[in-house]
């Protein structure tokens, strides 16, 4: 053992590593992938009505000064059915929710809403996924929070779980 300080080198290296670990645990940097769409304006669209008892959906609905949720769903999508109670809870809490049914037929959507409840104020039918693509949404379900000037504030990918509801309500309130 020629140089005694060399023996303490591993400990010193580990100490440096530990400082990084402690720093890393303190660091609250977002570890969630944030959508590139956040802060961008909602693309313009005008969709026909997706259900027989709800009005059609136009992107101008989002420039009327009130924040709204825009939910991408489909009658054939099972996670959407799992998400339905949470959307109902959001609607009951006073959050306006609109839906865009992807690659769907009006009769199927009616059937879906009859079975799982209808939280939507407006429903658009996007039979060819064109609006979905313009929105940069990759799958169903997905939910966007849009502010009163038509800017996207938040993108929720996947189904809304029960634990996500309070956070979404808080975000909606903050947007007002």
């Amino acid at each position, binding site marked *: 053992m020629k140089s005694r300080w060399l023996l303490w080198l591993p400990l010193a290296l580990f100490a440096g590593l530990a400082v990084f670990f402690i720093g890393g645990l303190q*660091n609250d940097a977002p570890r969630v992938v944030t959508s590139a769409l956040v802060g961008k304006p909602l693309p313009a669209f005008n969709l026909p009505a997706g259900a027989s008892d709800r009005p059609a959906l136009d992107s101008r609905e989002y420039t009327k000064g009130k924040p709204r949720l825009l939910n991408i769903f489909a009658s054939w999508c099972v996670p959407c059915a799992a998400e339905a109670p949470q959307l109902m809870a959001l609607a009951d809490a006073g959050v306006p929710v609109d839906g865009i049914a992807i690659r769907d037929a009006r009769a199927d959507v009616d059937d879906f809403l009859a079975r799982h409840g209808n939280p939507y104020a407006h429903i658009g039918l996007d039979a060819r996924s064109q609006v979905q693509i313009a929105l940069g949404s990759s799958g169903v379900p997905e939910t966007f929070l849009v502010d009163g000037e038509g800017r996207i504030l938040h993108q929720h990918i996947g189904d809304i779980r029960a634990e996500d509801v309070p956070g979404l309500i808080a975000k909606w309130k903050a947007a007002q």
Partner: protein
Amino acid sequence: MIAELGLAALWMSAALAALQLVLAGGGLWSGKKAVAEKGALLSGVRPVAVAQGALVTLSFLCLLLLFLRSDMSVALVALNSHSAKPLLYKFAGTWGNHEGSMLLWVMVMGLAGAAVALFERALRHDTHVATLGAQAAISLGFYAFLLFSSNPFARLNPAAPDGQGLNPLLQDPGLAFHPPTLYIGYVGLSVAFSFAVGALLTRNVDAVFARAMRPWVLAAWVMLTIGIVAGSYWAYYELGWGGWWFWDPVENASLMPWLAATALLHSVTVLATRDALRAWTIMLAVIAFSMSMVGTFLVRSGILTSVHAFAVDPQRGSFILALLLIYIGGALALFGARVGTVREGSQFEPMSRESLLVINNLLLTVILGVVLIGTLYPLMTEAFGHQVSVGPPYFDRITGPLALIMMLAMVAGPLTRWRKDKVGVVAGRLLWPLLIMIATGAVLFVLGGERMSILSFLGLMVAGGVALGSIAPLFKRNLRRTPLFVWGMVVAHLGCAVSLAGMAADSAFTSEKLIAMAPGEKVETAGWKLHFDKVGPIAGDNWSAMQADMTVRRGGSVDIIHPQSRFFSNPPTTTSEAALLTRWNGQLYVVLGEQLDDGRWQMRIWWKPFVTLIWYGGLMIALGGVLTLIGRERRGWALKLRKSHAQEEWA
């Protein structure tokens, strides 16, 4: 009742671990006693270690029973299981979550401690006691972690009507075997760690110590190898991406201890045979288990994002970090303070087997460093405000060439004598492997090797040379009288060549086709004719799926394969079940994708020549370890038997 019994058993085993630590520590502290008294001390500590192992096993069995009975009044079961799940996954679900896997961790640790208490005979008594004390000290920290921040037996009041189900990706027979083997490997390395601490405490590092430690390292290493091979194959067929290694933090967390353990395995052999590399071996023994703990910390604290992450929790992260600081910091401090007083080992010449093993050790350590830095790099840049992700390009490009150089040293090592050898003689022994390597390269070049990446080209070339070089130690030997541990080395090294050939062949020759097909259509790729017969729904135990029937033909053979897109309702998830058709020379890998609006289906079709060699090679490496273990230990048993006979005759 079962949950309470399990919890009580867990508390009692924690108490026994504390007792074991106090007994061992107190006994060693109370001054220089005669060796005979140390023997008495050992017989005092031994039963405590065994009882601790038995109790923690009981606790684990209780949790297993709760999962098998789908007892939804236990929070962990309700969160991770479902009554409609097949029995195998209820069973495997026990460790498919954070708390259960930590209980598995402490059980393996307790059992390893009990095994060291029962079966270790070669170690000096005071070192043995210190080793058991160190093992108890580590266990104690993990018991505290379980009891204070991850109680697996917490009740749920009121009980849930049914569970939330297990992540469908984990609902695979692989899950039943992969985590336990990996954990036995991971945690088995704690024995090497405790040995190192025990040796430092009692200033006892020599060839006898190394021979005592070697079987424990070997056993843990074999399990770790099997666990990694199984995990790689699982990721290959279950994720449906056609890749077999993704450099994901969790994979790296299992690779880093393996690299350290592989280095340790070789340096402990140098210490056992030549009484050299004392400090280095101790260092590696500390690093190997430290890497297991660092890996667990990285994965469980949520400090790095990983596709494998269980529910992460920063509070748990802080707890594991505290354990890391105590154990790794403590062991390294002890190393700094004590290893200088360990007598220096034997010296060796620059041209000797020892030197080549040192080169192997250095390369393994460098690769370990590269993987560690790559894994931590996102964390480091995050500290400076950037978020990056480090992927395969970095890891492949840096570890690939290093691994190839190491393979060359691996061929030269066994062909070089201990202590001192002549450069010219070794070069002569290496002539044939070198010629084969050049010949492989030439053949590849003629067959169009310029189209492959340089790394796959070199990989195949080196694999050819290493394959011959690794069996070269058997030349001119009487095969019947060759000791089993030499066979073990040959098989393991040959396994490296086989695995390398598989990796290089997969990356050089794989052909991929992404197409949309309607039922009734045909496609041809890489010599295979695939006919898409039909597609239809099918129901399983707790899933439903769209399943395609495809007739595939090649040469004269006809097979029907069934790729599936599987849907699970609890929790709602879709997984793709790739259809694999294995031939001696490769695997056909077909994934059913989504349906397009015109009714056609997306299909991904791979033909992967010789890809299976990757895992066969991995299993050969593990088999080599098993052979060596049996070979070495059988010698030890025979020796002991002879010694006891001799003693009887003397008496």
